[in-house]
């Protein structure tokens, strides 16, 4: 049977992927705009379409705590959250990573309070960037769906054994319907395979997990985490390749769009990149040599990839959907740092955009293109940052 497109929201795409994964345990709590993932998955449970043990916990803190317990026992354990929910589970988010548990967590990116705002930005996961999780960001519903399977494989890889956040933008992606091409169950089953990691609490010999780790060992254990992260990109590349073979869709660590002869590029993550591509197509019509660069992963940070790719261009505009108050925003800062020792480097400009779900419109991105043209010609505005489209 030929694969067919079906209309799904981003949240439903996540739930559909989770249904096909059929995890042993799901522990989750409702929070806008993640809630439809849990609701949809609960329907699958209620209809017997999965045989997952679902734990409807009383808080996000307990969601991550139960997920850690389940994964330590050897279960394929998943959860999903957003914004304040992620903030509430913060403490255990770190514990999950340092315990080296291959958990996959769906994130629907949403602005952190306060003031309370339920719409999409990246302040939640950018705050968690030092937690030791791998982070993959999805531009559209198809990517959301596909990323879940790749995330699972990356997390469970024996060289990695780190948890993964699969991020999509709140409402813009999670609540918008797009055509998604799901793979047949059998293809998914073959791709994800049987879990290989061992349940520590089900091991033959009694195992102690989470001991007190003091000055004499903690430091070495942190180094192990550090080393594990270094092994992630080769694993991602191999898994992306295998994914392309099995699913027929090809992904790279960094997606380049119309960059072949580009002088300037716009770089950013998740849903805004759809709009960026529109703007680039229109600018290309006018003969402007502009392209787009989309890092799919923020952790580990694809610095070496970016260094290679971005050094080809005259100017790069970097879109961050979060701020780091008192500093420059994260995607910009970490990208700029990559070029410290380079003699060939692009001019860079930082844009903080779309906080609290504010639309980043075609018009605003056209202004970015104009800015970058000017920057590439005059060098004016190099290494500055602005709030894109804010009312002053």
């Amino acid at each position, binding site marked *: 049977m030929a694969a067919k497109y079906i209309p799904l929201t981003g949240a439903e795409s996540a739930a559909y992927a989770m249904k096909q994964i059929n995890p042993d345990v799901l522990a989750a709590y409702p929070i806008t705009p993640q809630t439809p993932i849990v609701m949809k998955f609960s329907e699958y449970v209620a209809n017997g379409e999965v045989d997952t043990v679902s734990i409807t916990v009383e808080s996000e803190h307990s969601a991550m705590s139960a997920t850690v*317990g389940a994964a330590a*026992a050897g*279960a394929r354990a998943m959860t999903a959250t957003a914004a304040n929910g992620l903030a509430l589970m913060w403490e255990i988010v770190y514990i999950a990573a340092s315990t080296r548990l291959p958990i996959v967590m769906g994130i629907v990116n949403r602005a952190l309070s306060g003031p309370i705002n339920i719409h999409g930005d990246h302040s939640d996961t950018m705050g968690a960037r030092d937690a030791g999780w791998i982070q993959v960001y999805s531009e559209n519903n198809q990517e959301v769906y596909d990323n879940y399977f790749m995330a699972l494989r990356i997390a469970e890889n024996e060289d990695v054994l780190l948890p993964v956040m699969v991020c999509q933008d709140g409402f813009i992606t999670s609540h918008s319907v797009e055509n998604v091409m799901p793979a047949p169950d059998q293809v998914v089953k073959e791709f994800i395979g049987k879990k290989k990691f061992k349940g520590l609490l089900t091991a033959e010999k009694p195992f*102690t997990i989470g001991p007190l780790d003091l000055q004499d060992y903690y430091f070495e254990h942190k180094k192990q985490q550090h080393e594990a992260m270094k092994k992630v990109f080769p694993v991602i590349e191999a898994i992306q390749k295998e994914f392309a073979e099995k699913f027929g869709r090809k992904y790279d660590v960094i997606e380049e769009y119309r960059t072949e002869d580009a002088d300037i590029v716009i770089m950013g993550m998740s849903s805004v990149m759809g709009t960026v591509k529109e703007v680039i197509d229109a600018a290309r019509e006018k003969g402007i040599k502009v392209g787009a660069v989309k890092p799919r992963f923020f952790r580990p940070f694809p610095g070496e990839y970016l260094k290679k790719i971005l050094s080809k261009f005259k100017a790069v505009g970097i879109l961050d959907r979060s701020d780091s108050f008192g500093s420059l925003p994260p995607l910009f800062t970490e990208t700029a740092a990559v070029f410290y020792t380079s003699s060939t480097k692009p001019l860079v400009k930082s844009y903080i955009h779309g906080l609290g779900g504010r639309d980043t419109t075609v018009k605003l991105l056209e202004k970015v293109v104009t800015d970058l043209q000017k920057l590439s010609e005059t060098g004016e505005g190099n290494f500055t940052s602005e709030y894109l489209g804010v009312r002053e």
Partner: protein
Amino acid sequence: MAILLKDLVNKNVPLNGGHRMCPGCPTPVIVKQILMSTDHPKVAANATGCLEVATTIYPYTAWNIPWIHNAFENAAATIAGIESAFRALIKRGEIAEDRKQTKFIAFGGDGGTYDIGLQSLSGALERGHNFLYVCYDNEGYMNTGIQRSSATPIGANTTTTPVGKVSYGKKEPRKDLISIVAAHHIPYIASAAPHNWMDTMNKAKKAIEVNGPAFMDVISPCVPGWKIRTDEWKGISEAAVKTCFWPLIEIENGEWRLTGESKKIADGKMEKLPVEEFLKSQGRFKHLFKLENKDVIKLIQDDVDKSWNYYKRMAGYND
């Protein structure tokens, strides 16, 4: 099958000696009483606290059973995840035959149970996971340096309710956690005191073997926190029960009863001692025996009597 001391001495202990709990601390004794009450395979989760830090200083562990520490306030949620994982893995044929009857026990101190872990505990009880939660109750944050918790009794001198010129220590009565847990209508709840090992072990056996959530609150006299000698826990545990400061309660499917010495006192077969008998050997209450604090002892006695009468009524006795 009855629990016999002669059988217990031949069993492997789930918590080895050589750990770094304080000399004279009954918490490891409580842990052994609980875990050795049945022969089923077990998995334990431990809240952050003295039991956790002193038994697992990496690279050593005193635990002979699979054991996990996650954080302070989430032992109940963690064990819920483990219990759910076992259910899932059994369903999918991934658990060995001899592990299918695995029992799940969480340990937390009173700080991790009465205070910061109460929500996690309540959630796990309400969802009906098959596990036993044991609070080893030393009535304060002893591991962090003797601060008050909501389990600390009136009049106790702690580092956050210090005795001073205008203060006699903690002002508020302890939280009635047994009643809070009872409001979840789970199948089994008990309080226990380690000096009465048979009562504690019989309760633990029932609690572990019952189908559904179970809860036990076990008093654990604390050498540095209560300022007692290392040979005193047993006598103080006994005095706590005989003064009715710590009644031995059992709630089976909603039916309250008193056990051990508490039953004897309620039945008129044992004398109820004045609360001073519990307070007198503990340094944390030393100041109460000064003339100016005589009223506080009366306050404590009134509070003890009030709760004792409440528990007696719940257990079907008339005042």
